[in-house]
């Protein structure tokens, strides 16, 4: 099969993995290395596809043949999808040729499990090792780590990769058993724990061998099982806390060709995924706990119509208004419409003068939706917060339905 045909099949097979980050690695460049590649620590999205998702890494599988039969996966054993398999050299060459043309930041390599976990993991590691040692490649490498692979192979993977990931896929053990009969939650967790310890050790002992300097990540599919958003967020929060994950990717269940009958026929709404990402940010950067994001909600689901911070504020009106001239950073971060950067600018600006609405307009960009929640030198919201109609004042207007939909 021509390499370009394999590329098409094995990119199509890999696209359900939402991970795309190329950030968080070491700073390095190719001056004096003889090879190519650099990393500034910040990721670069080199393109965007019409689904609005970024293209940062060459995201492919080594092969889409698989001995496992996970219902949600397009590559499961019982699927009649076309199969292909790259050689190690083909992946190395494609990565280098794409990289030289500035199409990508590096490689995201995963694989179906063929023969055995060790056999497959060894091939993934061989790609990364060839790029790093034979070609002095200093671009980004993300490798999927196969939970059942032997510790030596995982150690080598961490030596060459910037980031490793294991997908937990489903938010509960019960769902995993139902949809992925060959996978075990316990094995996945044990490998995540092992990775988190090795990552932490390598950070402490900077003279020791390198290990996955950009940390580890995972993916959760939402909407394939019946788990609520609060279950998803509780799982996510536990994963961040226990294994120090850098990122959790939420992937709204998307219909796949030749789908298993265990799966819902309809895709999960993309807005659900979007709201989960917003809630995830609230947990990581805004000081929210998983429990309080949805405390007091009706059905343990994030509101599809308004973002979770605004929804929280509407349920916790007694926490507002917040005085931008005196409030603590933690309280400012809870104001809908104030992001982390804006809050830091407010803190800097207010040490020099009492902030007025015009100042806030310059610092925050827009301020219409802020008005009910803040106090400034020249503004105090009237009884707006008590009005039941507050939601309709601050929520974005629903788009008019198309007459021709």
């Amino acid at each position: 099969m021509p390499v370009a045909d394999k590329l098409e099949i094995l990119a199509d097979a890999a696209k359900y993995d939402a991970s795309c980050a190329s950030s968080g690695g070491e700073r390095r460049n190719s001056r004096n290395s003889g090879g190519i590649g650099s990393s500034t620590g910040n990721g670069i999205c080199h393109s965007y596809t019409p689904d609005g998702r970024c293209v940062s890494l060459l995201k492919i599988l080594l092969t889409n043949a698989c001995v496992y039969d996970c219902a949600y996966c397009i590559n499961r054993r019982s699927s009649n999808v076309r199969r292909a398999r790259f050689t190690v050299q083909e992946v190395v060459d494609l990565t280098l040729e794409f990289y030289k043309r500035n199409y990508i930041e590096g490689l995201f390599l995963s694989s179906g499990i063929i023969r055995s976990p060790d056999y497959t993991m060894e091939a993934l590691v061989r790609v990364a090792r060839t790029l790093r040692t034979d070609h002095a490649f200093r671009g980004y490498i993300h490798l999927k780590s196969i939970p059942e692979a032997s510790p030596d192979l995982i150690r080598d993977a961490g030596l060459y990769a910037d980031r490793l990931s294991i997908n937990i896929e489903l938010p509960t053990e019960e769902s995993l058993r139902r949809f992925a009969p060959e996978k075990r939650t316990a094995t996945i967790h044990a490998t995540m724990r092992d990775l988190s310890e090795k990552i932490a050790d390598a950070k402490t002992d900077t003279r020791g061998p390198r290990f996955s300097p950009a940390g580890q990540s995972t993916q959760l599919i939402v909407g394939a099982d019946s788990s609520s958003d609060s279950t998803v967020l509780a799982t996510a929060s536990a994963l961040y806390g226990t294994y120090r994950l850098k990122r959790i990717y939420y992937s709204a269940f998307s219909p796949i060709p030749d789908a298993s009958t265990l799966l819902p026929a309809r895709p999960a709404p993309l807005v659900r995924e979007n709201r989960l990402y917003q809630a995830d940010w609230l947990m990581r950067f805004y000081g929210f706990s998983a429990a309080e994001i949805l405390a007091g909600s009706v059905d343990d689901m994030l509101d599809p119509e308004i973002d979770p911070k605004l929804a929280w504020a509407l349920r916790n009106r007694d926490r507002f208004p917040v005085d931008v001239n005196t409030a603590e950073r933690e309280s400012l971060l809870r104001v809908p419409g104030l992001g982390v950067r804006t809050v830091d600018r407010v803190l800097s600006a207010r040490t020099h003068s009492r902030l007025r609405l015009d100042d806030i307009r310059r610092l925050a960009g827009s301020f219409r939706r802020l008005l009910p929640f803040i106090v400034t030198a020249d503004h105090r919201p009237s009884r707006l917060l008590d009005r039941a109609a507050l939601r309709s004042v601050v929520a974005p207007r629903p788009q008019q339905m198309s007459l021709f939909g």
Partner: protein
Amino acid sequence: MIYSIVIEPPDDFAAFRTAARRLLAARIDPADVTWTDRREAALFPQVPPGPERIAAVPRAFVELAEAVACHRDASRWPLLYQLLRRLADGERTLMDQPADTLVHRLQRMAASVRRDRHRMTAFVRFRIVDDDDGPCSVAWYEPQHRILRRVTPFFIDRFASLRFSILTPDMCVHWDRQTARYASGLSRSAAPGGDEVEDWWKRYYCATFNPARVNPKLLDSHMPKRYRRDLPEAGSIQDLLGNASRRTDRMIGR
């Protein structure tokens, strides 16, 4: 007395610095200075060489000014001189006051330049041609601001062992694995055509798109249309959008 200051080339931060130090030493008011990119457009006498006053300015000002220097807007030098003058006149904390009208305006200009620099690192596409000295990567790119000099170190870091040229309408850079040489600008027609790898890249782009998640608005916000003209993969966008719902229907068996 009104003075004309010529800053040439138009992104020459060092020339601005020298001129500004002379203006500060002579205590010339920002309102009495006009700034221009071209010698022949200078209507008033130039500030004669003389003593320079090196004001102690915060690091944040230098970073801001270096970015703003690349901005295409003609107001960049007068605004920077205004800010410098206020800093030199004792407003020591001005850089920590993001709500100040002047600081805010300049920070927005700097942000626009930084965004443009980031997009250039993302959207430059090289094509590899062979000449007498072997393979050379050549890219044509139209930046929004005059950022080529500032972005070149990024590409040298990344491709130090390759020969490359980046052509823009303002200027070009040629890297020969040792030094970067700058030359005058060229037009798009000077850039080479695509090769087989570019076709693979287009096929990859189409394959990694999931038609069940089609979202043209998000695409437009991340990759505005004006950047797409020189992205080889962007030629597929119309077809991918047009066929998305049919492909999704087929997947879910409707």
